[in-house]
């Protein structure tokens, strides 16, 4: 058992479900209220705007909208998780950040197709941990161009 690979997940709340991302993908977590987001007109609907991250301009996306979830407005619990993939940074808004969870890799199972309200393309697995179900997100797929066509359609 001790030989198993440990995985650290940053877990957060979004539209009533618990999600997790690999901590190695997380660059930093910010309070929404602390930073001024600049609105970008005529961008896809889920793009909240852009922020200044130490001199670089990075986009913030509303994860709920990106997943097509019906989500409430932001409040003081709202956080921005800045994730990085291939040296590219992007901020994701979530309802609340919960904790960092240590799980063994083997507790993560293949996602059953109907487990969540969101597209299984965005999910890399389900962590079944002490009777909690944490949906582990695939950051790479969230930031990849599969839905390009759909995105541009919805904005025009």
């Amino acid at each position: 058992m001790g030989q198993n690979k440990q995985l650290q997940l940053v877990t957060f709340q979004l539209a009533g479900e618990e999600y997790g991302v690999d901590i190695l993908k997380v660059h930093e977590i910010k309070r929404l209220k602390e930073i001024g987001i600049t609105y970008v007109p005529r961008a896809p609907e889920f793009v909240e705007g852009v922020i200044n991250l130490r001199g670089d301009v990075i986009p913030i996306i509303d994860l709920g909208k990106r997943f097509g979830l019906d989500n409430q407005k932001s409040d003081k619990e709202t956080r921005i998780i800045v994730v990085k993939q291939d040296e590219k940074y992007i901020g994701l808004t979530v309802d609340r950040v919960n904790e960092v969870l240590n799980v063994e890799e083997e507790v993560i199972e293949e996602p059953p197709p109907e487990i969540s309200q969101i597209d299984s393309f965005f999910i890399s697995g389900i962590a079944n941990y002490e009777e909690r179900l944490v949906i582990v997100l695939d950051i790479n797929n969230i930031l990849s161009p599969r839905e390009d066509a759909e995105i541009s359609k919805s904005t025009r």
Partner: protein
Amino acid sequence: MSNLDFEKFQKLFLQEANEQLEIMEKAIMQLEEKGEDREIIDEFFRMAHSLKGSAGSMGYTAIASLTHEMENVLDKLRNTPGILNDDMIDLLFISIDTLKHLRENVEKDLPESVNPEIDHLLQRFQEITSPDGQKKQKAVDKKLYLTSQEFKNLKEKDQEKNVFLLCFELIHQQEMQSMVAFLIFNNLKDEGEIIKTCPPHLEEVEGDLPFFSILICTEKGREEIGKIVEQALDQEEYKIFPWSEIEKGEAGEYCQEVKESFARRDESRDSIRVDIEKVDQLMKLVGELVIDKERLLEISKGIKANSRDNPEAQALLQTIPHVDFIATELHESVMDIRMYPVGSIFKRFPRLVRDISRQTGKEVHLEFSGEDTELDRTILQEVFDPLVHLVRNAIDHGIEQPDQREARGKTARGSVALNAWQEENNIVIEVKDDGAGIDLEKIKARALEKNLVREKQAEEMDRESILELIMEPGFSTSESVNDLSGRGVGMDVVRTNIENLDGEVEITSEAGMGTSIKIVLPLTLAIVQALMVREKGNDYAIPLSAIFETMAVNGKNESDLIKTVKNREVVIWREQVIPLIRLSDFFQMGTSCQEGFLVIGGVKGRMVAIMVEAVLGEQEIVVKSLGDFLGKDKLFGEIPGISGATIKGNGEVALILDIQGMLKSFKKGGDTIERQSISC
């Protein structure tokens, strides 16, 4: 020379060799074009000579001997006019190619191999230079080349010790020449410091060696050295020059100071090589500095009002303008480091044009203008391949065969021009030919055939859009696929490459008259002056270079300024009718304000008036991209009317308006009121 010195000189050598080869290549081309011309031959000779000199002093024998033979041919050309022929031209071209190859070997640290190819070349040269064909003996370069620095060092050494140059001509002794040389070298080695030999690495040379020389610094006198030499030599002749004679130039046949090759850089450019990443890092830091500077200026405005009695605050207020000045200067200097003249890539074209015109049997004259126009180095490198493609196209598809041209009443020889100039914040590079022009009907037919457009679409297309079709992927009008162009990966690649640089490609063409293709590139002024405006609580920056005027709009003058034509709002400005864009409408942010400001702007002669709520003032901004996700060909797509972002003094982001993009996007929206005139 220490290793470090050697590396330094090697770099210098490589740089210079590059320039010299380019000049020589150009000279051959001019010779081919104009025939024998004393000035060109002289220039050519000078270049070959200084290349020979520096190659010799660095020990690159193959380069030195090849340039030596070139010198001989050129010298012959000077002395006996009328002997220039195609063979010679070809031979000179091949030599240049070989020299380039040898130079590359040096650059890659490969051994400078004396391969059969070079031997063959040398032989061909000698056949030309000795018409009787009798003297097939290899000409030997007897000179020992000393750089100015070496020359200076030797002069100092001669103060304390003796510097001698020993020159040996083994006329009688035909066998074991290298053995003799080795013995003398070995004996002398014990008597002092051997500074240089000709040929270099004398001790390792094998076989025939009819001539060699040794430069030595020793405590011994002339006679003693003579005795040592005579131990190995019987009746052979040798000459011995003390430093005083060398300095006076009496040993000129055997020793030369290669001042010109190294000293030349003083006149042209003293340069160091710096990793481009370091410059980028510097640029980024300067960007940060400019943001902070703007912040300081903002803070100082606040301090000014209530600090008349505070000497420290007054001192601060005096310092801030200076920081402002320094930061601006610093920015300009860093920008300048990255700039490079367009001519540096133009220089590579004459040869290309010559080769293509030979292959195609067309006669082409290449012209340049605006070689001094400067462009960011990185952009310049990226733009070379597209330009090559355009020039190929111009010759291959544009310029007609000589007989066709004459039949059309043109000169048999076609012309291709490479022009460059600056236009506001853009650099334009144009490839222009006087060929057949682009046949619009042919393009339409081709596009239909390739299913790039529908028939109905094609009928409605204007000239400009039809020409743009040739940049669609999969479009190629070439009837025969050949070596040069027409593989179907043509103009679309050019367009993609240029657009990746935030540039644009514009095509104009007239049947029978020729084609002009313009590459319009940004100057990459990463820091620009901008006007800050506000709309619906958001701040936007508009580059000042695109702005002509701002005007306040209020209830009183609104009806005078803003009119409605065909259901579109326009502004009458200096008797021009220009379309009005209300920023809120354009960005779909709700209803536009009725009072505010009109920003009159324009790019490339197309004007627009933009209505905003408030004008905040001018400021320097650092231009940044919208990141890795927003923008053309990025995951979340292009944002119409936004070209980038900047960071304001308070750390928040402001978007930069792209007037050209707005005009484009606006036009697509169905507006075509440009250039309409109404009387009022």
